[in-house]
């Protein structure tokens, strides 16, 4: 099922005041342009781990309540 990475990116965007800055920061942390992630981007466990770690660091949260 694709779409898990997109949900993480959307979560970061929705929970940030400076949305573009949060996504740019995430881009630098995961090493790829997260704004190009779409619903059809295939799931990838390795990437998902990196995305979640980056999201936690950006949002300064220990736990993310993303509904997959």
């Amino acid at each position, binding site marked *: 099922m694709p779409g898990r990475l997109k949900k993480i990116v959307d979560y970061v965007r929705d929970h940030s005041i400076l*949305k*573009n*800055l*949060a996504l*740019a*920061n995430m881009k*630098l942390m995961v090493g790829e342009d997260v704004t190009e992630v779409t619903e059809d981007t295939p799931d990838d466990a390795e990437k998902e781990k990196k995305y979640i770690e980056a999201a936690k660091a950006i949002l300064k949260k220990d736990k993310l309540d993303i509904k997959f």
Partner: protein
Amino acid sequence: MLKALAPGFLLTVVLAAVSYFVSTIHDALDALVIALIAGMLFRLLFGGQSWFVLVVAYAKDLKDVLIPIGVLLYSATININKSLTLPINAYIHMVVSVAVLLIVALVFGRLLKLPPKTNWLTAIGSAICGASAIAISSTAIDAKDEDISNSLIAITLVGLIALALYQVLPFVMGLRAEDYAILSGATLHQTGIVKIATSGLGEIQKSIALPVKVLRTALIPFIALVFFYITVEREGYKKGTGYLLLVLIAFFVILGLSAFLPAFAALSKMAGIKIATTVIFSIAFANLGLLVDFKTVRLKPIIVAFIAWAASLGAFMLMI
């Protein structure tokens, strides 16, 4: 997040401070124009660096904050009183020029199949007040980055071409200094460019050229509201754009205060306040320049802006 904010914040502040100091070297140099071009060049030169994504993201996020603050502060320094005492022919030329610039740009933009919002911003930037009008209106119409980039480059480039031609044309055509001042105020794209073009006119610059330009600047809230309304009609109301209405209302109020309350007008003329206003507005303009992505630039908006300016020059020459 502070770490992520730092590059954009520091860069825009440094660019604005440098632009301000450069502008103090000579009267003909305008801090806002310098800051805008410096922002564009910085992105052109360093846009490929990985860290620059933070700068561009900062510029996008802060655009809707910095530009309204800058415009409101700027509106406090506008002396509309001088514009109210202009000779009647200055009003006629201003109205005709704004109408020609707006209509010609919209019509030719449509003929050349420009994306609608690029077309609107190019027309607004040409007819009203360059970068400030584009910045405020881009929020009002929910424009994309490419729309902002293309319209800003078009009006800056055509403004500079017009500035260069105005060093020769008026003398070839035998224009009187007063007519040249009206021509510059009514047809050039940015206040800074009007200042540069008329820097040799002395008192006539202050009494005619800049007051004519101020009249166009005062149209910003009206034009932004019109296009805001058109966008809402076409696409529905978008969350987050409501604050723009407050900014536009504040613009009207401040203009009114500076026109009818002498104490307020005197306050806004204090040197310290003028410098602070210029630096803050320069930060906003540097920020705006950083939004310009040369990779997305197309020739058509430049052609449209040039035709509109040429048409306004033609209309002016027919009327004198």
